[in-house]
């Protein structure tokens, strides 16, 4: 009940999803000076690790020109004017001064995979390589008590400064006993709360950490929830999608390094620079949507001609994400590009409400009681049929037994 009251309160206070792409010269001038000052301050700090970004770029055969191209593209992605490009480049070099603690909760490690399994590390991955990853449950060599010690030390040493990245949902059922970690058997919930306490900000990465994702799909046996339902008193950024795009993770860390603040967020706490736009409006197949040219079944003429995937259940029209612009794996390709529809992985409840690979009208919906599943049209037609039967009965009864008013004409 209190949840509902909270929701109603939120109705009229929530921020709109409007994206302001131009905030005026004075705003950007002020921001520029602030960022410059912050970068100078960062420069004086000793890097937390010995990795040098410029060396790493060279080792991977990426020249200065390519790096600057990346920097200007990233500046544009963050919705900053071109004059910020040198600052973004500077910030990337200083990423090894940003301490990060990475938690792995109830999930498939897909987001870690996303930033590790690039065919050849590109600039986004290299930037993620040099961040000062103080603790990462999946990647670190240490284990057991040793790992816990490392975490405690990192949290103590970078108190109030580290970014806490969380991957995976939090099982709340059975007192959180569905997921425990470490030698002491700490539940995921307690682990997260402890690590978040001294973090500068919490970044929930991937569909599970943001909105519960697949673990939270019906019937949600573990009572999984997202980080935003557990951590209330910290700046929180959601980077949903399955997996989250490394470009957006870099964007958020860069923004933090550059400005010391979290980027502008929408009502679901997603950075607007990445989730302010709808996939549909930047889709390469949009012209086919408007023309009414759809793939009717896999492998048909339409599919061979890259027609729109709307009838195959593409959810681009209701999904906000930038993957139709930045794509995945350094712009190699993305789901719709490979000929299958969007499943709305950056939206809440995506597994139940988006990912059924059918148009919405054919999707099975649950009755409010959680019972029988029918499509909207089956339910609607059923309702209409019931109304028709009712009317037919009434009409028949009226004909047989109804009383017609005397209309003034003579009757036999």
């Amino acid at each position, binding site marked *: 009940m209190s949840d509902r009251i909270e929701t109603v309160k939120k109705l009229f206070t929530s921020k709109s999803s*409007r994206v302001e*792409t131009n905030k005026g010269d004075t705003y950007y001038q002020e921001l520029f000076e602030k960022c410059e000052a912050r970068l100078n301050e960062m420069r004086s700090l000793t890097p937390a690790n010995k990795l040098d970004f410029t060396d790493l770029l060279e080792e991977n055969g990426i020249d200065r020109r390519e790096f600057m191209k990346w920097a200007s593209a990233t500046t544009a992605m963050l919705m900053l004017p071109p004059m910020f490009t040198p600052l973004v480049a500077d910030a990337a070099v200083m990423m090894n001064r940003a301490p990060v603690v990475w938690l792995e909760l109830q999930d498939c490690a897909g987001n870690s995979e996303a930033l590790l399994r690039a065919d050849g590390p590109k600039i986004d991955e290299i930037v993620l390589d040099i961040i000062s990853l103080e603790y990462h449950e999946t990647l670190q060599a240490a284990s057991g008590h040793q790992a816990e010690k490392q975490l405690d030390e990192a949290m103590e040493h970078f108190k109030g400064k580290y970014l806490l990245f969380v991957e995976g949902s939090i099982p709340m059922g059975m007192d959180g006993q569905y997921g425990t970690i470490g030698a002491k058997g700490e539940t995921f919930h307690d682990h997260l709360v402890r690590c978040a306490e001294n973090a500068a900000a919490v970044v929930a990465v991937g569909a599970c950490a943001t909105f519960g994702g697949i673990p939270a799909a019906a019937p949600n046996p573990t009572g999984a929830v997202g980080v935003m339902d557990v951590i209330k008193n910290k700046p929180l950024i959601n980077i949903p999608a399955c997996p989250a795009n490394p470009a957006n993770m870099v964007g958020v860390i860069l923004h933090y390094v550059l400005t010391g603040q979290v980027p502008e967020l929408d009502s679901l706490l997603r950075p607007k620079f990445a989730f302010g736009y709808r996939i549909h409006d930047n889709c390469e197949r949009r012209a086919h949507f408007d023309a*009414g040219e759809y793939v009717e079944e896999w492998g048909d003429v339409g599919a061979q001609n890259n027609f729109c995937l709307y009838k195959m259940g593409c959810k681009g029209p209701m999904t906000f994400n930038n993957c139709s612009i930045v794509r995945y794996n350094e712009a190699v390709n993305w789901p719709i590009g490979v000929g299958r529809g969007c499943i*709305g992985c950056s939206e809440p409840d995506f597994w139940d409400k988006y990912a059924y690979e059918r148009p919405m009208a054919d999707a099975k919906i649950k009755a409010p009681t959680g019972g029988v599943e029918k499509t909207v049209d089956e339910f609607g037609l059923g309702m209409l049929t019931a109304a028709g039967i009712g009317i037919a009965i009434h009409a028949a009864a009226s004909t047989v037994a*109804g009383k*017609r008013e005397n*209309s*003034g004409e003579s009757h036999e």
Partner: protein
Amino acid sequence: MKQGYKQVKRMTPAMRIIHWVNAICMVGAVITGLYIGHPYYQSFIADGAVDKYVMAWNRYGHFIIAILFDVTSVIIAYLYFFSRFEKPYKKVIPNGKNIAEFKAVVVNLLTLNRKKEFDSSHADSFNTVYFTIFHLLLAWMLLTGLQMYVHGLESGMSSIGTWWPWMLHLVTDWTIPVCGGTLMDVRIAHHMTMWFILCWVVFHIYYQVWRTIFWKEADIAIVIGGSKFVKDDSAN
């Protein structure tokens, strides 16, 4: 006019025009809306995409209809309270008189017109409540529809200025949590409401025809000629 009957004016020309605009819009909205929800006919594959534009035209038609509905809804909402002819809000207030009349009309329908203990010359409480339900369903369609529409204006700009998307967000963002928390829930709610409205229409048409046949007061003429005919007691 038939002997012993008097003519009662029930709908002004404006009301009748609005009724038929709504009725035609409804048919158009259902035809285009079903296509948008699940394109049920195919474009000719051989034509160039630019000649087809089938989904775009369907959406265009759907939105133009939505604008007509917007206009008629505003007028109807105004007339509910300020009409110089009849103020329908007076029949919706749940006071003793209205509740009694509402019950009497339901009894009349269920007893197949064997019992008719209310004055059928003027607009009755049952029908007015039933019409109000329709207007509320329509308002809900407008709000959920505009919510889906504003998703395409994410830049915050539109051809008529920034106030338009700003206003749409302000007025319709609340439908998301009310429908269930996701944009998809808004779509499902919009689609489901269409079926509620269709059921509403089916009963509405049946009931007006039924009244005409059993009351013998030419109720069906109200929406065309604007008046019906009731027995003139003073003449007897």
